[in-house]
């Protein structure tokens, strides 16, 4: 298997970009990432945009982008795994290079989540659950986060107030991230008293709706060596699916994530203490569970350790950096790349590994990307 490196990354600030369409957002990061990569040609483009068909009325968005950007005859594909589509794009790009089918792959995650009023975008977003079994029966994604949160509080005797530590921390982190959507501090009481989304979940337990675009160029060793980019290796990208919530024996566990992290541990002897991480905290409660599944904290006790976590969601996470659905997984990898190679807002990680976790719904599918420093 051939090694894969990150040759370049680019992001724009996540925001309600009313004046820019998906072509402008994608165009901006593509231009920037190409300039940063110093590679001679691009062999393939992998695109993720979760709401392309619903919000943009666009199928085959990948081809339309090659047309718009004058990239013909570059092969291109769009992938969809719901909210984890961005990391799925990285996964496919990685596979194309390890397969020897490409030496350089352009990964573009772009989302226009604000083309319609929020209540319409909320309906589009609900399509990540099973339409026939869940959505038609009026169940929406935050309802599941709420049920999981209540079960977690009951099981581990944790109070609602104790679970405010995550969003507060994420807002603090976002202050240092130039690309973050929510750049202001919040307090525990602000979390508790914000408008309810699905109680006990409030507005500040949930990601904001925003537009964004991020791009990466992945390169084979051959190309990375030539351009001096043999720095950060994409060691692996793995993924798994799990059962719907109502078929789970324990709703406070994320089984597919558990499967994946133990796979990476076994395969690479990798320890989570050696890693800087970006995790999929679409709702506060998911952050606590993910921290526990990854082995960063003990079960039922992760909220106690949040304040001391320096290298988890340096970006501010989905909570405060934002969650431009199909772009999120690409942002995460770009962020880990930056914090390992250049430093972000005064934080630089000098350890060996970077890990990003992306999922759709409550771990309906999860994906992990393991990055490793080479020099």
């Amino acid at each position, binding site marked *: 298997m051939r090694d894969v490196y990150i040759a370049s990354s680019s992001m724009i600030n996540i925001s309600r970009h009313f004046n820019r369409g998906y072509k402008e957002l994608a165009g901006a990061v593509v231009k920037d990432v190409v300039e940063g990569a110093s590679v001679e040609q691009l062999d393939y483009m992998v695109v993720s945009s979760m709401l392309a068909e619903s919000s943009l009325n666009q199928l085959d968005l990948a081809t339309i982008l090659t047309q718009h950007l004058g990239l013909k005859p570059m092969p291109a594909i769009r992938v969809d795994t719901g909210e984890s589509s961005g990391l799925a794009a990285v996964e496919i790009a990685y596979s194309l290079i390890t397969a020897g089918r490409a030496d350089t792959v352009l990964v573009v995650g772009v989302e226009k989540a604000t083309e319609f009023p929020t209540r319409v975008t909320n309906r589009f977003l609900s399509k990540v659950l099973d*339409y026939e079994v869940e959505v038609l*029966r*009026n*169940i*929406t994604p935050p*309802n599941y986060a709420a049920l999981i949160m209540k079960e977690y509080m*009951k099981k581990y005797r944790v109070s609602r107030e104790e679970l405010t530590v995550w969003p507060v921390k994420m807002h603090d982190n976002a202050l240092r991230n130039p690309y973050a959507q929510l750049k202001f501090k919040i307090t525990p009481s602000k979390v508790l008293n914000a*408008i309810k989304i*699905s109680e006990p979940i409030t507005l500040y337990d949930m990601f904001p709706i925003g537009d964004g675009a991020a791009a990466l160029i992945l390169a084979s060793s051959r190309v990375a060596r030539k351009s001096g980019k043999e720095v950060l290796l994409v060691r692996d990208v793995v993924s798994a699916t799990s059962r719907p919530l109502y078929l789970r024996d324990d709703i406070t566990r994320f089984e597919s994530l558990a499967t994946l992290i133990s796979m990476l541990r076994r395969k690479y002897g990798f320890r989570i203490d050696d890693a800087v991480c970006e995790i999929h905290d679409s709702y506060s409660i998911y952050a606590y569970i993910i921290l526990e599944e990854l082995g960063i904290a003990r079960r039922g006790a992760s909220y106690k350790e949040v304040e001391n976590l320096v290298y988890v969601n340096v970006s501010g996470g989905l909570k405060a950096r934002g969650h431009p659905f199909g772009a999120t997984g690409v942002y995460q990898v770009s962020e880990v790349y930056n914090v390992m190679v250049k430093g972000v807002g005064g934080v630089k990680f000098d350890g060996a590994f970077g890990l990003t976790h992306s999922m759709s719904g409550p771990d309906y599918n999860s994906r992990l990307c393991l990055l490793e420093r080479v020099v």
Partner: protein
Amino acid sequence: MRSSISIFWRRKDSYYKVLLTRCKRCGRASFFARDVCPYCGSSDVSIVKSSGRGRVVSYTVSYFRTDSNEEYLPLVIALVRLDEGVYVTGELRDVEPAEVREGMEVEAVLRRYSSDDPYGLIYYGLKFIPVIKRC
């Protein structure tokens, strides 16, 4: 017309009755009528009708607004353990949000799911309501 009438119609038995898939291979029963067992993938299953009765395990009062649900907010969404031991998530009606309790006995009855666009259909299906104790 956002929802396909065909999709709804095809599954109507599952919306009008609480149906379970019982697997002859792994022995587990699961909510919704399927032709394969979602636990083990076996096709050796039978569809059985649940009593529709159970107890609230947990619930949430939802204010999450979509352009399909806005006229019904807030919704109470509950995780219910049916008497058959099977879990199901669904909506709870005919009770004030503040009066819902964990452990509350509930039963399934037919209610309106949602109306579609102005010219669309109204979909009906099962929701849970509290069991009224007859003294």
